[in-house]
């Protein structure tokens, strides 16, 4: 189904807001009532979801989807690089703590 650009944008908005609300679920499931607990799963999920949102915002809101290949390649590489550094730092940090 070919969406108009306007509809497509609205769908993208619904998707990123839904992902944002998923954070509430993560938050609720990790903590013991009022006590906050550390959780690798929650943290990794949090970072992963954030990067997914970043890519959606770039592709759909910033029109990278319609951009020349070099920009699509560079922005994807950027998200990948951010992922490698963020996941890497967190996991390595936890391992050596």
């Amino acid at each position, binding site marked *: 189904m070919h969406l108009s650009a306007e509809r497509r944008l609205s769908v993208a908005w619904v998707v990123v807001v839904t992902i944002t609300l998923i954070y509430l679920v993560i938050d609720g499931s990790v903590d013991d009532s009022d006590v906050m607990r550390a959780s690798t799963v929650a943290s990794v999920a949090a970072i992963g979801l954030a990067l997914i949102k970043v890519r959606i915002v770039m592709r759909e809101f910033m029109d990278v989807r319609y951009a020349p290949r*070099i*920009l699509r*390649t*560079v922005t994807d590489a950027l998200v990948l690089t951010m992922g490698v550094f963020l996941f890497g730092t967190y996991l390595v940090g936890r391992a050596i703590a």
Partner: protein
Amino acid sequence: MTQERGKLRGAKRELWLAWYVTVAFYGLYSVVFFALARAQPPGRPWLDPGQTVAWFADRHWGLLIGFGLIFVLGGFSAVALALITYSIRRMSVSPAYAYSYLILYAIAAIPGFMFICVAMTCGVMRPDLSPVTTQWLYDLGFLSFVGTMGVFLVGSLIWMVAILIDENGVLPRWFGYLSLVNALTEVVIAPSWIFQRGVLAYNGAIGFWVNVPVFGLYTVAFILLLRDFIRRDDLGTGPLPMPPPDVWGHAKRAVEAVGA
């Protein structure tokens, strides 16, 4: 026609001289501050008197020789400043931009560059200085170096705005945006002396280890771009005959070369 080209080349010789002096200045600055005087990375903030005495003792000859060199050759910084100011004058923007930049940097250079050299040299000059006085000189030196960042920041924002609205193609717009990146890292430095420790202190992970490499990247970029500008400059007042370097063109060719 040949006479005109000869005149152009002759006038450009002055620009090239200024450029080589700029390179020499930043080279000297790096070697002195990082290797000789070892004033960078900076000492920890808020040291007690005994610790500052040890810091100075550890760097006795480095400070004297290194900053002695700065006292002799530090005037080179004025040439670097003049070259950048000329680049702004060559733009299609009001001369006010060039003059504001020149004044701001010229004034800020004294507390922000010369002062640390004076204070630190004072700190090691006399062997019988009291520890409390040494501590005072240590604080004065680093505070003047760090605290003047606000003035340099405003100056670089003026350069940035001039680059973004320039229609002569003196410097590429991506460098204007890189200036914004640099300015936003500098914002955290001016008040950093408030922190006695931690990532935002002037020797901290963010305060020093992120901000200085970004500044280094920015400096290397403008040195290379000034070289490219001098090559393209026709010493006139209108748009330059050739456009500035296009990063995306280079990126595209690099990616194609890799076969992505």
